[in-house]
């Protein structure tokens, strides 16, 4: 008789266990963790043998190179320091959280989410360790909420993603199109033409990985930032409010390409790697992505396709703001490390001009360090030339998008626009709804002190241009 209650209770318990597991892996909230610890590094000397420094990174593309450089450091450093590098998987953020919660954090770690790591008190400031020469090198590259908070520096930049339109030259030629598109209208027309001539061979004009919300985000964010001078990520730096109208033109262009049938069939379920595989096979005319692509087409999906990268198209063909570079934060020292000085010695080695120049020249990433760009040789990896920084490429200041989405009710902006691209609707009311919801959540985040990023009335994205490179 009571069996049903037992069974119902058991199934409830089983069902709840997912939430239980999740919580179990997270850090106990503690007010003491909400502020970064002071830097009181010891001298790094472990009793007797070597001082062991643990270094965690989620980067796999440069793992062999970094390992060889770390081996070199272990052999040559005179401070008896031994660095052990661990390359983590896609669950890096969870692994870091668990490590800090269980007091097993690495001494040096990659800072892949600066604002959150700062709030969680994971990083130790490095100002006191930096030599004056090093401070000089990075003086124009540091950004509030990406490297520094309240005058304290926690991490320095190394490389960044440069975003471009990537296109297959041969496909464009076959369709009789001379040049890659400069405006959104040209992009829509080119995609249509390519599909008309290539469809019989399975060739389509455009693609983006719409399986996840990154599909719209990849295709639109750089275009929006370059087409206006108010901001990026839906955030208007001038007014300090979210204003998603910056995506209206690109959303309409993508919708049009979908209606024209110019997108690769199945883009709705496409991830970035299957997309790249199709591009490598010469099935896609163009897509928008970042400077990892030369490495991808060299090693991951070797291709004979004749491809190149150019600036993304904009609404009217001119860059009014700046083309986004994603990057700015790289590695930092754990606030919990008992060997902060030794950790710094390693960090200093990683940021040394010689290591960073070699990293850049070998094509592992586009350097954001001006001295490296100006003094180092250009990387030689095929296809990289289109990604080298130009005058219009710039890192935007930090914005409160991630913090805002932490308490956002309803769908995120890229999901809402993705749905519009495939199902249509009234784009203006979608934008209005997003603006309302995001600004309510932003207000909440500001009121609770979760973010102190406010309006900057003097902001003009075009003024960001030329800081990294002056090449036109």
């Amino acid at each position, binding site marked *: 008789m009571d069996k049903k209650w037992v069974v119902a209770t058991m199934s409830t318990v089983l069902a*709840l266990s997912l939430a239980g597991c999740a919580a179990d892996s997270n850090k106990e909230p503690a007010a003491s963790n909400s502020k970064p610890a002071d830097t009181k590094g010891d001298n790094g000397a472990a009793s007797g043998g070597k001082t062991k420094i643990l270094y965690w990174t989620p980067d796999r593309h440069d793992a062999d190179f970094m390992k060889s450089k770390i081996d070199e450091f272990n052999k040559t450093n005179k401070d008896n320091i031994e660095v052990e590098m661990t390359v983590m998987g896609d669950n890096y953020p969870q692994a870091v959280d668990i490590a800090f919660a269980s007091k097993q954090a690495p001494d040096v770690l990659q800072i892949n989410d600066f604002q959150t790591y700062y709030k969680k008190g994971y990083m130790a400031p490095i100002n006191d360790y930096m030599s004056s020469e090093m401070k000089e090198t990075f003086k124009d590259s540091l950004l509030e909420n990406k490297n520094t908070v309240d005058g304290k520096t926690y991490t320095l930049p190394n490389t960044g993603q440069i975003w471009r339109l990537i296109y297959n030259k041969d496909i464009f030629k076959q369709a009789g199109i001379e040049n890659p598109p400069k405006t959104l209208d040209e992009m829509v027309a080119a995609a249509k033409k390519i599909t008309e001539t290539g469809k019989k061979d399975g060739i389509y004009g455009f693609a983006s990985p719409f399986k996840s919300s990154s599909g719209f985000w990849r295709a639109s964010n750089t275009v929006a930032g370059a087409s206006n001078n108010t901001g990026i990520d839906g955030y208007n730096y001038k007014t300090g409010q979210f204003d998603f109208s910056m995506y209206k033109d690109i959303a309409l262009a993508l919708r049009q390409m979908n209606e024209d049938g110019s997108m690769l069939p199945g883009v709705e379920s496409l991830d970035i790697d299957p997309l790249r595989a199709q591009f490598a096979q010469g099935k896609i005319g163009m897509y928008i992505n970042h400077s990892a692509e030369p490495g991808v087409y060299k090693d991951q999906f070797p291709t004979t396709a004749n491809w190149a990268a150019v600036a993304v198209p904009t609404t009217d063909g001119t860059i009014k703001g700046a083309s986004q570079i994603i990057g700015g934060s790289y590695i930092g020292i754990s606030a919990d490390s008992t060997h902060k000085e030794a950790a710094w010695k390693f960090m200093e080695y990683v940021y040394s001009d010689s290591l960073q120049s070699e990293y850049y020249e070998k094509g592992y990433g586009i350097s954001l360090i001006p001295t490296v760009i100006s003094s180092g040789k250009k990387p030689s990896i095929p296809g990289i030339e289109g990604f080298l920084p130009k005058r219009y490429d710039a890192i935007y200041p930090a914005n409160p998008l991630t913090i805002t989405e932490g308490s956002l009710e309803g769908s995120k902006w890229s999901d809402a626009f993705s749905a519009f691209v495939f199902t249509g609707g009234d784009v203006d009311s979608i934008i209005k709804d997003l603006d309302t919801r995001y600004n309510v959540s932003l207000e909440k985040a500001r009121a609770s002190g979760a973010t102190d990023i406010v309006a900057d009335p003097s902001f003009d994205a075009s003024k960001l241009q030329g800081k990294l490179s002056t090449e036109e």
Partner: protein
Amino acid sequence: MKQKKIHAYVFVFPSLFLTLVFGIYPLLWALRYMFYDYQGFGTPVFIGLDNFGRVMRDHQFWSAVGNTGIYALGKLVVTIPMSLLLAIILNRKMKGRSFLRAIYYLPTIFSASVMAIVFFIIFNSYNGILNQLLIRFHIINEPIGWLSADHAMMTTIIIAIWGAVGNYMLLFLAGLQGIPNDLYEAASLDGANEFQKLKNVTIPLLGPVMQMIIMLAITISLKGYESIMVLTEGGPYGKTEVMYLYLFKLLFPVSAEAQSIQQLGYGSAVGFTTAVIVGGVTLVYFRISKKLNDVY
């Protein structure tokens, strides 16, 4: 007698301990955050029932609940009759019976995530094997978007059925083997044909087993999300988002590209709500299916 009792406690202890430590404790740990605004850092702020108010307003969550209903129903309606039929067939004396049972059971032991990747290779529209076959045999001219907004739910249900039939077949087989043979002999003497035997002997006597199997099937379907996560990530734009996938994303916002923040407070409230829904559906089912249990 007393010693016997002690023995019982000793035997129960290991699993009780593990359940308490790894099941109940983290559960209670998580549940208190239902009433807090907490994103994994800083001090949690007590907000009373606000998180539940947000659950009520959350269109995405309720659309995920609706999707879960479609997914579970679609899966059950096909899986249960199919596995019962297979069990009845494979319960007869026939050549290769064990081999066939093993074949049908095989999908159960594969990892759901690995199989989802294999099914992606079969179903994706740009170079999927299924579309290529259909085009080659001139059944279709243009590739069908099996994972597009229109068909993605159907595709995930097909995959779920494929993974579940063998499992329930085995459970039904166990049930069938518990039915005494003399009842069939008696039915034969009374002149019953195969269909009458199925209708009047097999199905009624399977009642209690069937009640448990359907209960299991309901809870498992309502909680299923692994293969959907790999196959579609809940997309395109939320069309295959199910309750537990939505919950999973709130608690583990794993994203290779965009940065996201864990929503522990709200996630706990959603977790509690989903658990109440699953528990509620199970209870209702038990009420309705009471008759199945009144066989003996």
